[in-house]
């Protein structure tokens, strides 16, 4: 295609920051040693690993030993949920999990897995029409046998920010482990442990201009995790397998840069986001914002449109030069409404017409001008197609 392409899907992934790439490169060729080795090649790898762990701990304001490196956000979520639930089951016979219906599939399906294969009972917290969980609701549903509570921090589909710190307080009062999936939030919000109060926090590097295939889990000292895979003693026995040094170095560098530059970007992102939210609602009849209007990720705008098939709209947008998402990726052409959107009380027709527009460091005002000039006609064209096709 000859048309310029504008990327408005930073919630799906981000380009690797040049500075991050620079930091990673030495660890592919020159300093390639296995951190477990005795020799100096190994020592270089181990030093890089220690430094990366220190950098991440500094951003999250925790101890380096509380950081476990993983293969990404999904593994972090799995290690948190399955690791904590199974450890609590062996230790004290815990059998209950509390979570929300608007979690990322990594959390949802880890919970379902525990239900199916390990006899856990999963209880779904109610969420309001913005997708927010209520700390008092959490407190009411906590039981002696609750193994772990998991509530998403910044929602990937609808952008809503949950009152994670209050939920963490209620869990701590009952001595129950609390996990938050901060994978989507980590590029936009502070993930300081002292602010969030969670016991387990998942992040993934490619959401904040780091490489794909690497993530981390903050695991509060004293919390027991059953490892997912048997193997060596890496990551203090919590995650076996030779550490992916170049990618871990990349995660740490990207995380540090993101935290340092957040104040500089946040205001600009929020201004772009608000232009999108206001512009789409003004320009497209029958458009509804999903998620909280203000208490949402600064770079995240999301909508539903009546009478529109999301996948077709995304194809039309892409061909017009705008790369967006429906919030729940499905490329197969098998449409099924997002369970998160249904949990907000939306009809299936509306849920099938979802659109997510997320901005990032390279997004300009002109990009948004162009997007807002393009979208209304495409939605209109999709509605004409859908109606006459019936």
């Amino acid at each position, binding site marked *: 295609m000859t048309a310029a392409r504008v990327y408005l899907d930073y919630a799906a992934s981000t380009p690797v920051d040049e500075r991050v790439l620079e930091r990673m490169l030495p660890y592919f060729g020159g300093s390639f040693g296995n951190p477990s080795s005795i020799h100096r090649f190994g020592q270089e790898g181990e030093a890089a690993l220690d430094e990366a762990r220190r950098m991440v701990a500094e951003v999250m304001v925790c101890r380096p030993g509380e950081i476990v490196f993983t293969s990404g956000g999904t593994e972090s979520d799995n290690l948190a949920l399955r690791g904590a639930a199974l450890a609590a089951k062996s230790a004290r016979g815990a059998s209950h999990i509390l979570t929300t219906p608007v979690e990322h599939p990594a959390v949802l399906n880890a919970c379902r897995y525990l239900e199916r294969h390990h006899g856990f009972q999963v209880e779904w917290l109610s969420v309001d029409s913005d997708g927010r969980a209520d700390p008092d609701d959490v407190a009411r549903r906590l039981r002696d046998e609750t193994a772990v509570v998991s509530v998403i921090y910044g929602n990937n589909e609808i952008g809503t920010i949950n009152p994670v710190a209050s939920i963490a307080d209620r869990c701590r009062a009952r001595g129950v482990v609390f996990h938050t999936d901060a994978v989507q939030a980590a590029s936009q919000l502070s993930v300081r442990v002292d602010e969030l109060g969670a016991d387990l926090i998942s992040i993934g590097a490619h959401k904040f201009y780091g490489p794909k295939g690497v993530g981390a889990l903050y695991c509060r000292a004293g919390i027991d995790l059953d490892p997912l895979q048997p193997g060596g003693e890496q990551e203090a026995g919590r995650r076996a397998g030779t550490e992916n040094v170049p990618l871990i170095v990349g995660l740490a560098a990207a995380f540090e840069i993101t935290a340092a530059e957040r104040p500089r970007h946040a205001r600009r992102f929020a201004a772009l986001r608000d232009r999108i939210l206001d512009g789409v609602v003004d320009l497209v009849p029958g458009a509804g914002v999903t998620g909280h209007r203000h208490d949402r990720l600064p770079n995240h705008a999301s909508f539903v449109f009546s009478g529109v098939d999301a*996948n077709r709209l995304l*194809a039309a947008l892409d061909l017009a030069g705008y790369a967006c998402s429906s919030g729940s990726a499905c490329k*197969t052409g098998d449409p099924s409404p997002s369970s998160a959107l249904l949990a907000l009380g939306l009809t299936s027709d509306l849920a099938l017409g979802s659109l997510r527009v997320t901005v990032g460091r390279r997004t300009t005002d002109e990009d948004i001008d162009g997007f807002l000039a393009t979208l209304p006609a495409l939605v209109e064209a999709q509605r004409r197609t859908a109606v006459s096709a019936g």
Partner: protein
Amino acid sequence: MTVPRRVAVAMSGGVDSSVAAALLVDQGVDVFGVMMRLWVEDGRVNRCCSPDDVNGARQVASRLGIPFYVVDMKSAFREHVVDFFLDGYAHGVTPNPCIECNRTIRWKHLLKDALGFGATHLATGHYARVEARSGEWVLRRGVDPDKDQSYVLSVLGQTEMAHAVFPLGDYTKPEVREYARRRRLPVAERPESQDLCFLAGDDYRAFLRRHASDGLTPGPILNAAGAVLGRHEGLAAYTIGQRRGLRLPSNDPLYVVAKDRSTNALTVGTRAELGRASFRTLPVGWVCGRPPAAAAFPADVQVRYRAARVPCQVTPHPDATCAVELARPLPDVTPGQSAVFYQGDICLGGGVIAA
């Protein structure tokens, strides 16, 4: 043809549609690929639009450097093609779902999607040609006589023709395969697709049974004189001209001559009793929008997808149906199939053969 500015290519993961896309790309046309999800039957492997086919088409698109999108057509396909197929058999005719798929799915729904995506044209891998002649769009047979597919495109009208592109019309199948090889398309050696895409490799009768068609009630097999010769397993399991599977003792080979839905009777006869020299059609669609001006006109008619063309005289009636007089009787004039009319290599249009 107007110069296409942006062409959507309907891709299936097969050789023909892949080469159609490649030819357009190589001509410098702005191209993108679309693939329809048409049909999924739980627990069965489709012959069409399976995840493998989607991956195949996606790989071709990637090799060609063009965008590729999958569009869901399952409910429209179920309603317009599969139900049409089941209804036809339930009503005692032998329906042609490929023609119906072209009419409604490809050239209504998919064309609308393509235009909604900003395309000016829709291309498919059919062997046929579209040409502008004195202000009209003309549908011509493909140059490969073994592969010509104008029969299933006879349902197109001027509106659809104005957007239609058939890059393979000037090529033979061996040339198309050669092009795929030279272009190193990962589908060059894929086998030719046979029978209906949604049958999942089954005989159509098994599909009818699975979908509880009501054309499967057993009944009598009669001869022309009305004598009962045996039992049939349901009219839907037979088609006009069929010889095999009758399981009747007879010195002369017997053929299915007629199906009577009101009595659920299957009539068989010798080859001599089989032929028909005339028939009526349901309303005919003409590619140019209207029948030729004469009260009756000579043409060639094709009564099945792979059948030879036979000279005939066509008399259009005011209700858009046609009476067709064949130059010689044909053994397989089958209600439910389409009669498609040609003059030379130009496809005039067609209509369903009436019961």
